[in-house]
């Protein structure tokens, strides 16, 4: 402050005459005039209306079907069986029938949905070790303390993958049978791979290094499977051996924790290569058979199968179109009010008088 400039002379302390120092920087100073505000409101109202209609139409042609199988059909026994942790190793199979009223054209996606399952609890979400799941050798056998109490088993063996998230992985297996009117049963073929984010599959989750002589099982030697799992991580997929270990798609999908307690996760995509499914999922009767493993009774949860189509806008989501339509209406009402006020009060300029 007040530092003298180097030079001396009659005007040596005169401040510079720069636009910045004199606060005369060229500037745009908009103000809320009727000429800008009212058209903006009308235009925005129109934009929202159009968007809303467009989205609504899109969503109208996006079909979705939810089949709650928690205790439906023959699953009530399994539901009751899974109430007790003691019987957790006892296998239980059940079936649920459902009807698809309209053909789902195009690609059809099969999700499992869980209700009231809090994947978003802080301690739950912290209970994982990304360094282990990216396949680092050191971390594989020394899981992070965040995984506790799922870091080592009772014998002190490191768990892979460690933590509560992996431990609680959804382990029902779902099979959907198509029952055409002719009485036959056709299994709906599903792609069970390619259901995870590319970045997750290729970057975030990696297996420990293996080669021709060093198998995945050997790589995981010295670790044990999570407490609630029936199989070790390197045997998750018994059909496709490349889908085993940390890069198992189901595991990856599960590990991407949901933001809210009610969520659905991708289970498989309809394989439209053959049969009646080339055009999509035909209308008709279906049977869902479940290897019922995942207990939901303790946390008063529900399980469901969600069959859905997908558009550019994602799945069937009525919220945004309706929200846009409502917003459009609100803006329109506001715009009309503002216009009325402007015409009654502001237009004559009386309010602007001194």
């Amino acid at each position: 402050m007040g530092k003298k400039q180097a030079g001396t002379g009659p005007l040596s302390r005169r401040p510079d005459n720069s636009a910045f120092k004199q606060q005369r920087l060229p500037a745009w100073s908009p103000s809320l005039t009727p000429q800008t505000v009212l058209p903006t409101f009308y235009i925005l109202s129109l934009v929202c209306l159009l968007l809303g209609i467009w989205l609504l139409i899109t969503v109208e042609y996006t079909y979705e079907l939810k089949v709650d199988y928690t205790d439906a059909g023959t699953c009530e026994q399994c539901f009751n069986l899974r109430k007790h942790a003691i019987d957790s190793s006892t296998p239980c199979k059940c079936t649920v029938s459902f009807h698809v009223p309209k053909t789902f054209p195009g690609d059809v996606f099969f999700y499992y949905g869980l209700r009231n399952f809090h994947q978003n609890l802080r301690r739950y979400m912290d209970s994982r070790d990304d360094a282990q799941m990216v396949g680092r050798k050191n971390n594989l056998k020394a899981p992070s303390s965040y995984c506790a109490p799922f870091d080592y088993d009772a014998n002190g063996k490191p768990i892979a993958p460690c933590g509560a998230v992996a431990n609680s992985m959804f382990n029902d297996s779902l099979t959907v049978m198509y029952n055409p009117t002719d009485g036959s049963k056709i299994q709906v073929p599903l792609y069970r791979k390619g259901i995870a984010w590319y970045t997750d599959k290729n970057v975030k989750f990696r297996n420990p290094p293996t080669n021709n002589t060093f198998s995945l099982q050997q790589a995981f030697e010295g670790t044990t499977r999570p407490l609630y799992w029936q199989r070790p991580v390197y045997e998750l997929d018994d059909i496709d051996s490349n889908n085993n270990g940390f890069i198992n798609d189901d595991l990856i999908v599960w590990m991407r924790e949901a933001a809210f307690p009610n969520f659905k996760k991708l289970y498989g995509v309809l394989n439209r290569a053959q049969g009646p499914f080339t055009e999509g999922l035909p209308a008709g009767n279906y049977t869902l058979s479940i290897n019922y493993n995942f207990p939901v009774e303790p946390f008063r949860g529900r399980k469901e199968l969600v069959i859905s189509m997908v558009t550019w806008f994602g799945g069937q989501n009525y919220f945004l179109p309706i929200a846009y339509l409502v917003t459009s209406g609100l803006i329109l009402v506001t715009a009309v009010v503002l216009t009325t006020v402007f015409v009654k009060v502001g237009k004559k300029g009386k309010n602007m008088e001194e």
Partner: protein
Amino acid sequence: MGSLLSACGINVKKKKVEEERHLRANDREFNLSFKYANNAIKTSKYNVFTFLPLNLFEQFQRLANAYFVFLLILQLIPQISSLSWFTTVVPLLLVLSITLAKDLSDDITRHKNDNHVNNRKVEVLINGDEKWMNVQVGDIVKLENNEFVTADLLLLSSSEPLNLIYIETAELDGLVSKPVNVNMNLSICYYCVRCEPPNNRLDKFTGTLTMRGETFALDNERILLRGCTLRNTEWCFGLVVFGGPDTKLMQNSGKSVFKRTSIDHLMNVLVMFIFGFLAFMCTILSIGNAIWEYQEGNSFITFLPRADGANASLSAFLTFWSYVIILNTVVPISLYVSVEILRLGNSYFIDWDRKMYHVKSDTPAQARTTTLNEELGQIKYIFSDKTGTLTQNIMTFNRCSINGKSYGKRKSRKIDFSWNSLADSKFCFHDHKLVEAVKSGSPEVRAFFRLLALCHTVMAEEKTEGLFYQAQSPDEGALVTAARNFGFVFRSRTPETISLVEMGVPTTYELLAVLDFNNVRKRMSVIVRSPEGKLTLFCKGADTIIYERLHPSSSKLMEVTTEHLNEYAGEGLRTLALAYKDLDEDEFEKWKERHHEASTSLEDREAKLDTIYEEIEKDLLLLGASAVEDKLQDGVPQTIEQLAKADIKIWVLTGDKQETAENIGYSCNMLREEMKEIFIVAANTAEEVREELLELLRTACMCQAVICCRVTPLQKAQVVELVKKHKKAVTLAIGDGANDVSMIKTAHIGVGISGQEGMQAVLSSDFSFAQFRYLQRLLLVHGRWSYLRMCKFLRYFFYKNFTFTFVHFWYGFFCGFSAQTVYDEWFITLYNLVYTALPVIGLSIFDQDVNDRWSFQYPQLYAPGQLNQYFSKMAFARILLHSCYSSLVLFFIPWAAMCDTVRDDGKDIADYQSFALLAQTCLLIAVSVQMGLDTYYWTAVNQFFLWGSLSVYFAVTFTMYSNGMYLIFTSSFPFIGTARNSLNQPNVWLTIFLTTILCILPVVAKRFLFIQLKPTINDKVRQAKAVPPPLPRKFPRRRISTRRSGYAFSHARGYGDLVTSGRFLRIPVKSRPALFPHTDTPVP
């Protein structure tokens, strides 16, 4: 504290309390035995080793930083830690290092200054040249002209007649010259001084000096204080009494009151409220957590076992602290740093303003305190000094009426005074008739100027450059200078003679008596004997007083002169009537005896003298009248009118008399003819003033203008204090002299005029500039903008932080109150620090609602600041509600849009990481658009900051979510791929668009409605901006019809006493190089 400081290497002196100072001149050994502080000073706070620990220690004492540390400790507890340590450490380090850098540079400057001062050289009697820091108490030092005073000195002698010395008091008080009357023989340097211990009272000193067995009392008159500069005095000797830290200057420094603005106070209240609010939110959430844990958590332990011994209540307790960490952003920690930054920026704009730079004195305006800017926009009362502030303290002899003839109409060109070799070249007069009258020898005209040359208490000083006058009051100087230029040159005086050069002829008058001025008499007279032996009494004084004492023969002349006086008063001039009387030798002798009697009487001397004076000052013959213009500073009337329009009440507090003050009040537009009632506060003691003021405060505060006359410096401060206390309004005091210091320090804002009266006012002020008229720019432009910017900043800052934080609150209801954050931790770290920091600073440094010309055109625009309209508790509550609304939109719209949806390839998008990214992007865009809505003045910098910050957000986000970052710092950046996978989704952008619309449009609609229905003056001006503002009006000078005469002396007693005192005789007057061959300086 003390032990800690000494442990840190700070030298804490534990001295015995000094009760009396005892020293011997030039006896160092003796003096050193007392361990008095030597003359080295230390204003710096740190050295190389103590800087870091001490500074950090100081910084952590601040609430904000302590809060950071508290959070950090919480975060280190694993059960509580809901955020990584870096979210706290990064901002903390930033804040600490900014403060550290600022303190470091400040302290380096102080070190440099200390070194510079300590290494100044001074001549010490026993050692020759010595550095200042080595000067000891008891040394005798010799100061030469223009040297700084080394320490507090006891003056021993000086080169000047009367042992007067002249000092410029740059840093202390406004004394201009100081008479010292001790004459001591320097060859015997054996003085013994006993005096009071060091203290900070500038006006008091007691002690005794023993010399050759004789003891003399010492008082403040003989002390020369450090911080002054010797002027017009060849040399002087002084004995060092107090050195270095003991000097009055150092004892006085560093104790200035730390001023805080009303916004600061409000902010403190709000921060306390926010703490409470934080606790409230955390309590709700932890209760929620207890309920959730009890109902749901128990059933979820299969998947997420509890830690040992944990149950719902412990979990709730831990959750409380976890939420304290998460919601900590609601307490605006970085607020204080940002506020400092933008105040500093706005202070720089004041320093840089060319329109507040005074070319003549090469003085730019200066914001000496950088923490008060926004209060400049809230001023309700201005307390102004008069002399030197409203007026230039320059008097010019403008008009005169001699023997019924008026001179001095400004119609012809300047008179050339070259015929008079002694004339003062700066003097100007415009009426040639007067010169002709003098030259032609008109006896009345000559008597008129003779009177002016004789009847005064001015001291003359002859230097090689010419003749200089030292006048007690500038109007006396103006009158004597006028006489000088018209050929009656006052050259020198002794106690018994006055030497003039009358039209080139040196003449010496014998000075028989000085009937000095005082407030009651309102006149002064001298009785002189001319070289011819004629006895004459010359008298000048207030016209009413003189008129009462005129001889009846003057009555006709009186009428004419009265007319002239009225005319002069109408022009706002200060008038004096002049009269004389020839005296009888016998009559005078008798009078003189009685005078002597009275002047030696011990009781009631003043009253007796007054009576004696009264006896002789009668039957006077009127000579005429003089009119002196008390020059106003440029633009004062306009400024006052502007400020009045801005509804700022102006009180003038002056030591002057009522007439003078009123006169100035009229001439500077404060008082106008149509103002009928003028209350006059005239009281003698502070208590009376207070009582009267309390009575009048109501009335006075309704008045547009108040003038307080005859107030002492202390009373000035009391008046300010009174208004501060009873009106709860923001006050500003403006002054230029030492007598204004108390007022400047008391008022919320002190403004110093850097003028002629020394620098003390400036040094104790918060803002300083050279001219009163800059005040309107300081208040109406800088103050208004600063207030506007500060309030916008605060409103926006609170808004963005509350909105940010409340989203977490809503998420608590969906995540089992588990203290899960909504956003990525890095976003939490960088939100305040990077993504939103620069735009808001740009807003609060550059924003202008209307430009400066409009601000001048409509001073009413100033009103919102006075009424606290832009930021108050109400405004804060509105912000809270607004944030609440915004956060609801920003949480529930993305929630509803995302909770059951998938990507366009059927894959997951309702996952936590995608939702976090969506929520934070919505938030950032919404608050950025809100920022745009708040910005009235879009400079390129604002655009750059806003778009830059948004780009930086996306750039940083993509970088942190990239493969590389994940593979290097796996556990720090778990959000890999989130940005790529969700920001390419149309529904994400549709959600962002919808939240932005829903956040912004209600605000736009509300603002538009208010502009239409209840437009403020501000809105009107902004809407009318298309028309360029007209040029500032010219103010015609008002004619004033009523006469206000003012006797021009200051109310203090003059030099009269000293001039005629016997003490004068003891001092040999140093003979000077003579200007004239016929100098007849009588050397007794």
